[in-house]
């Protein structure tokens, strides 16, 4: 291998890579290498970040994972050493189907020519040779459904806007990605911004749009930067001249409100006001931004569009299930070995994603949460369920946008439900009483239960309130907010009951229901725990005063012998 010649290096410098230290690796490698070193996007293997790819003269590549920014690691890479080589796990390779993310981590995201050299804008060129209604029809044939969570057929939505006669027609890309725990859209925008924009330009041709917006959450500075650079390049190459119209493409930054991902709230926010949803109808395609017909699609939805044009709708529809076509990106995180981004055909089972790709330990997984705070948990017993819009709905969960959080057996499901309600009640815009007050009451009840002060009536109350909040709310936020509670009550009722009847949190997560215990037989009297305790709860003879202790776990975290652990309250 040592005589193979290196053509260039690529370093993954999307936000996740940078957070792992990839910028320092890029800098050091650039200083030392005699061949070009490029920054690229995210390959999805976040667990192996920072990732370096050595592209060889013969077209092959060698990857290095978890690269450190030190002389030794860099030297090893420059010499194509055997150490630290990274390979995609075989199981993952067999299941995943990389289509939408094909260019992520393969191109320089802000290099227009690189995108074009990899087939970029061929979809747009093809679309422009077709009549608008033919393009809409192609999208219909593909069976593409909205990736923003709702799963509405994209071709139908396009045809609504196309049918409108108006001075201005608006297309909006929803890049608010509010589900905490999801990062598919971020990754796609950072790694292949032109792909999303190409999808939007194709939509503009198909629907007769005059203005394009991208509403991106402010927490994604790199995505915003890459989009802006890409838009300048589009202007430069006049790709925004579509059917004689000169399209304006505008990036607007969100300002930190989950509800602004809902389409009518998003429009209100784009108009500069408070992002409160309104009643539909009229639907945005009838009356949207400043009253003009407006169509909203998700980032990943647009990311799929160039593929549909390139390979044709019928070919696209060959992948997936009866009702859900194509592939889906999932952001895997939580209690598993290989967190990251994966792309799989619709219909892949949860077990395949969580165990085979995510490397989660079969015995230690309790559930997954899909769809974030609007979704539901799916217990491990049901992991044979294929991921498609309809199967997940049947379980009381939703596909959502693609966040998939693996929850281990050591987590308390009541606490998890409490966490989601703390989020939704905070993010409720306050317009609907049932959402504003109802989610607050549900949150308070869950606080009570996790504090060990709940009663059996509280469980009945949750079950009564849930459907009411669902029915009495205008937008999806309130309509779905009870989901995590109702789903955990359905599958993990025994945990709720243990909290209210026996004041016991099996997972030892709820602070009010645990004590800290120092096992004298393991203790080596190093005093690190005593030093770390912020409230002086550990005596000189190493006994924890649980009346003083705040359960902050500092002592357990510093103990070199793992002599300190949580136990059921009052049990020692």
């Amino acid at each position, binding site marked *: 291998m040592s005589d193979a010649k290196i053509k260039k290096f690529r370093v993954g410098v999307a*936000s*996740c890579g*940078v*957070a*792992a230290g990839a910028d320092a690796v890029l800098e050091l490698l650039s200083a030392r290498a005699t061949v070009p070193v490029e920054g690229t996007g995210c390959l999805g293997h*976040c*667990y192996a*970040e920072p990732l370096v790819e050595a592209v060889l003269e013969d077209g092959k590549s060698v990857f290095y994972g978890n690269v450190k920014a030190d002389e030794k690691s860099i030297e090893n890479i420059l010499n194509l050493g055997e150490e630290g080589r990274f390979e995609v796990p075989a199981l993952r390779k067999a299941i995943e189907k990389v289509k939408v993310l094909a260019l992520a981590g393969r191109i320089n995201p802000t290099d227009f020519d690189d995108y074009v050299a990899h087939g970029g804008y061929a979809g747009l060129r093809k679309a422009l040779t077709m009549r608008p209604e033919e393009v809409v029809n192609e999208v219909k044939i593909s069976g593409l459904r909205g990736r923003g969570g709702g799963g509405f057929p994209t071709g139908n939505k396009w045809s609504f806007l196309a049918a409108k006669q108006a001075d201005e027609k608006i297309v909006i890309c929803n890049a608010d*990605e*509010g*589900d*905490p*725990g*999801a*990062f598919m859209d*971020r990754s796609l925008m950072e790694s292949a911004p032109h792909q999303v924009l190409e999808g939007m330009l194709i939509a503009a041709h198909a629907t007769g749009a005059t203005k394009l917006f991208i509403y991106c959450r*402010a*927490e*994604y500075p790199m995505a915003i930067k890459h989009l802006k650079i890409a838009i300048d390049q589009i202007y430069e190459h006049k790709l925004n001249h579509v059917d004689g119209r000169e399209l304006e493409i505008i990036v*607007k*930054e*969100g*300002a*930190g*409100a*989950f509800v602004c991902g809902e389409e009518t709230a998003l429009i209100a*926010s*784009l*108009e*500069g*006001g*408070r*992002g409160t949803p309104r009643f539909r109808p009229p639907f945005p395609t009838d009356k949207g931004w400043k009253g003009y017909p407006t169509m909203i699609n998700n980032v990943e939805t647009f990311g799929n569009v160039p593929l549909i044009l390139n390979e044709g709708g019928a070919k696209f529809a060959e992948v997936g299930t009866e009702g859900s076509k194509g592939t889906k990106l999932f*952001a*895997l*995180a*939580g*209690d598993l070995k290989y*967190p*990251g*981004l994966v792309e799989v055909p619709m219909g892949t089972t949860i077990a395949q994603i969580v165990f085979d790709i995510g490397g989660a330990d079969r015995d230690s997984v309790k559930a997954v949460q899909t769809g*974030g*705070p609007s979704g539901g948990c799916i217990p491990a017993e049901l992991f044979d369920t294929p991921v498609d819009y309809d199967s997940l709905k049947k379980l009381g969960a939703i596909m959502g946008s693609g*966040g998939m*959080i693996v*929850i*281990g057996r050591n*987590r308390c499901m009541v606490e*998890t439900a409490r*966490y*989601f309600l703390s989020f939704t009640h905070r993010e409720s*815009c306050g317009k609907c009483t049932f959402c504003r007050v109802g989610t607050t009451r549900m949150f308070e009840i869950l606080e009570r239960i996790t504090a060990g002060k709940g009663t059996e009536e509280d469980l009945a109350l949750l079950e009564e309130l849930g459907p009411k909040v669902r029915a009495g709310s205008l937008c999806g936020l309130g309509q779905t907010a009870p989901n995590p509670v109702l789903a955990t009550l359905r599958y993990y009722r025994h945990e709720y009951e243990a909290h209210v009847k026996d004041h016991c949190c099996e997972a030892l997560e709820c602070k009010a229901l645990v004590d800290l215990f120092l096992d004298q037989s393991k203790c080596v009297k190093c005093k690190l725990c005593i030093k*770390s305790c*912020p409230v002086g709860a550990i005596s000189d003879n190493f006994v924890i005063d649980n009346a003083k202790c*705040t359960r*902050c*776990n*500092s002592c357990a*975290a*510093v103990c070199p012998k793992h002599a300190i652990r949580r136990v059921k309250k009052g049990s020692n």
Partner: protein
Amino acid sequence: MDQKYSFLEKIGREPSNLIKGLQAIQGAEGYVSDESITAVAEYFGIPEVEVEGVLSFYAQFKRVKPGRFKIAVCDGTACHIKGSVQIQEWISSALGIKSGETDKNGTFSLETVACLGCCSLAPVMSINGRVYGKLDRKNTIKILKEYEAK
């Protein structure tokens, strides 16, 4: 209008740019002061209460001056599962401030946010936009010390 806010001129005057204007103010000063609200209201030709209404709706906007180093601890789902609450408690007790507060010297301010998009590295925090992942007690305290020395 106060000369200090002349950079608003670069942003179109239509009210749909209000949020953009406020973001520009916060970008320049780190927060939105009473004084800047007056300037923004005047510039866009809308009542101050309306500006306040928009400000209070969005979590991004700060009404008090933040510290030199802005710590944002992620409490998104992935980070929560991975123990973000504890990370935040450790930071709180190390710096003596709670979420939403700034310390006395104006060095650190602490806030809790929902998801920085680096969930695979959970638990995560950012300081002045730089993201740190895979936090535990030891490296969190170490990072704080490094900033303190700056």
